[in-house]
């Protein structure tokens, strides 16, 4: 059975801090790894990674995939209160897309 594990499950930091969210996966026939941000309602897409070592960047957010060690990280620099959300990692394998339980990130002013 495909599995995705995220850590930490929750994280509280102050505005301006840098955070690193972790995601490890075990899936058969791995195709891609995705990061989503969920605020009040629907998860919204952040990144999709398919190759190791290539860092994806979007403003203050960046993500790297390590296909050898089967993990990905999501970095957020200079955090803002609007970054508060649940961050979901998902791995696409033979069973389709399997989600982790998410990291609940809280940014305090």
């Amino acid at each position, binding site marked *: 059975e495909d599995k995705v594990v995220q850590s930490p499950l929750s994280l509280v930091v102050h505005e301006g801090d840098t955070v690193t969210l972790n995601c490890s996966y075990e899936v058969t026939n791995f*195709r*891609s790894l*995705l990061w*989503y941000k*969920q605020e009040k*309602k*629907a*998860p*919204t*897409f952040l990144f*999709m990674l*398919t190759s190791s070592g290539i860092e994806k960047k979007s403003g203050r957010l960046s993500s790297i995939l390590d296909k050898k060690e089967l993990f990905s990280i999501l970095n957020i620099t200079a955090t803002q209160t609007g970054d508060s959300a*649940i961050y*979901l990692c*998902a791995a*696409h394998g033979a069973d*389709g*897309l*399997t*989600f982790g*339980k*998410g990291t*609940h990130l809280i940014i305090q002013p």
Partner: protein
Amino acid sequence: DTAVSQTPKYLVTQMGNDKSIKCEQNLGHDTMYWYKQDSKKFLKIMFSYNNKELIINETVPNRFSPKSPDKAHLNLHINSLELGDSAVYFCASSQRTGGAEKLFFGSGTQLSVL
């Protein structure tokens, strides 16, 4: 224009009732999904469906059934609702391209069974 839309946003009902949640996507995607998110925010797939294939998560009770009148719609019908069915249900769609796919989610339906 909403890419993936589902209705209703909120659904409150009594145990034992039958209810449906509708989903429509205007992205031209070939695959649609239903996910259940429990109170701990764990998102778990229930069904994936395209014109050729319905894949059911074997842990989903057969009281849940997806119905797809056409490629742009995938509705979720639930029979004999139980308290444990209370959750947020998300519809999603994707276009499988080269083996990698990106899901677009609807805004969710919060189901409360009393």
